[in-house]
């Protein structure tokens, strides 16, 4: 893997009325920290707060109202991130008021014109037990993963996705109301233009990282490899170098083919909103889909391999060593797998590591050199 040129670590974290924290000010070690505490003590809430500063949404999918401490109206999160080599710092803050439902974000003290301009300033990858849903859950879970990863790492992806969704809503309204084909055609252009950019980015990302995923998977499982495959709703040409024009052509043709059925069903039947991607275990009797046939351990392994791919994507696309957040990820893995994941992180992730665990364990990266802090009832004790 290519070495990242810059490192950004979280040095200070301030929380006000966030989840179970009324008031918290932490100065974090450069290397990272191990947060030890019982279930429900608020370990994951801390990781959630840090990651909030990357995408300004909860990585657990919680709506902003739920992030405000019970009985309070506004939460505030602020992080100071530092490049240890240059001492350059970046301060990112976010506040949400549940009465006005307004979110205010500042990057270096300046409010961005659009929230989309502010996302992905830091470079963070979070490993969570709920990641298994990306492998075992519905296609919507996998699209959500892909959309977040590509919005953060592929220039123009988020804008294309937003335009696609808006066009799709307009077009579906027309289809539902039985509008004429000529009126529908006016929206097809925008649908194809934005949708093709989304699908090309997905196809190219999946193809470019298929080998890395397979390598991570077999390194963790210590056995056979699994492949990452993009399953586009439209028959788009395979990556990793497919052009937006070629994808647009395939998408346009598929729309034309489905046009009569779309008029019957009153909705758009092809496009990125119906995409999926899969994880296939390569075996002697052909590929087997991990979603259907994988064991719990195999699905968890695939989920972790996927996050390692995401970390590699941050390194390549943004030239930055990501901060790694590990939310109790070793709990349900056998010691062999956990050890091998640690080895991978040791070898590749040179940035800050912040992990949570219910009790102290040997399974910690940085050879157990991380400080262990105790988390209990909304307080953190170094």
């Amino acid at each position: 893997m290519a070495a990242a040129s810059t490192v950004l670590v979280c040095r200070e974290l301030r929380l006000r009325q966030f989840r179970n924290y009324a008031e918290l000010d932490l100065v974090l070690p450069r290397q990272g920290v191990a947060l030890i505490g019982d279930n429900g003590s608020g370990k994951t809430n801390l990781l959630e707060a840090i990651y909030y500063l990357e995408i300004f949404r909860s990585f657990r999918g919680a709506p902003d109202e739920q992030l405000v401490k019970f009985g309070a109206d506004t939460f505030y999160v602020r992080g100071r991130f530092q490049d240890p080599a240059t001492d350059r710092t970046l301060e990112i803050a976010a506040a949400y008021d549940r009465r006005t439902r307004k979110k205010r974000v500042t990057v270096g003290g300046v409010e961005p014109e659009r929230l989309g301009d502010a996302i992905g300033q830091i470079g963070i990858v979070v490993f969570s037990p709920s990641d298994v849903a990306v492998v075992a859950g519905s296609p919507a879970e996998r699209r959500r993963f892909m959309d977040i990863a590509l919005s953060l790492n592929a220039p123009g992806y988020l804008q294309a996705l937003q335009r696609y969704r808006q066009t799709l809503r307009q077009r579906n309204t027309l289809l539902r109301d039985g509008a004429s084909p000529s009126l529908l055609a006016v929206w097809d252009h925008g649908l194809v233009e934005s949708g093709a950019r989304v699908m090309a980015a997905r196809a190219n990302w999946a193809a470019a990282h298929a080998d890395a995923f397979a390598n991570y998977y077999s390194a963790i499982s210590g056995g056979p490899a699994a492949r990452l495959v993009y399953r586009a709703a439209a028959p788009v040409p395979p990556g990793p170098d497919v052009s937006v024009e070629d994808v647009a052509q395939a998408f346009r043709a598929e729309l034309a083919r489905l046009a009569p059925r779309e008029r019957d069903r009153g909705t758009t039947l092809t496009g990125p909103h119906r995409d999926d991607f899969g994880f296939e275990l390569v075996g002697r009797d052909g590929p087997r889909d991990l979603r259907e046939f994988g064991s719990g351990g195999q699905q968890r392994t695939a989920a972790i391999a996927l996050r390692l791919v995401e970390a590699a994507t941050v390194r390549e696309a943004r030239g930055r060593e990501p901060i790694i957040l590990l939310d109790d990820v070793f709990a349900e893995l056998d010691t062999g797998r956990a050890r091998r994941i640690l080895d991978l992180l040791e070898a590749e992730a040179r940035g800050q590591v912040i992990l949570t665990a219910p009790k102290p364990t040997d399974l910690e990266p940085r050879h157990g050199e991380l400080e262990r802090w105790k988390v209990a009832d909304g307080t953190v004790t170094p």
Partner: protein
Amino acid sequence: MAVIEELTGELARLPGIGRKTAQRLTYHLLKRPAEEVRRLARAIEAVADRVRACSRCGNLSESDPCAYCTNPRRDQSILCVVEEASDIEAIERTGQYRGLYHVLGGRLSPLDGIGPAELSIASLMERLGNGEIVREVIVATNPSVEGEATALYIHKLVQPLGIRVTRLARGLPVGGDLEYADGVTIAEALAGRREL
């Protein structure tokens, strides 16, 4: 209290003004000299009484047809299609455009129940007639998803008449630094680059 309440209520119906701001505006007006407040009232009354949509282009004006439509020095062969009358102001400020206008009164948006029939598209086609007077239509709708769809719709209708249909270019803002432009704008500007 009744008239105070009434004014606050009316102000609160304006876009971007909530109940609190409306109240603040009301009490601000009450502190100003009566003549100044009457002047405001008269100005509001005057626009309500005298301003009408131009029956040709849809521009908001005190005369009908409006001053652009009746100005003999303006180029009758070019028509610039905009979403709202307020867009005309923005184009006029450039001082670079000498043609006529046509106001659509919105943009296509099925989600809001706005189709071609809700926009001044029939009257646009009427003005273009058989393509003898107007030689070019500049579509200056917004670069939003809806504005683009509207532009395409107009293009499809107008092109068969043998009239040239053009679209405003998208790109970098003048006076802005490249490093501060967002990625999408730079990508658009790259795609629409031109020969030096």
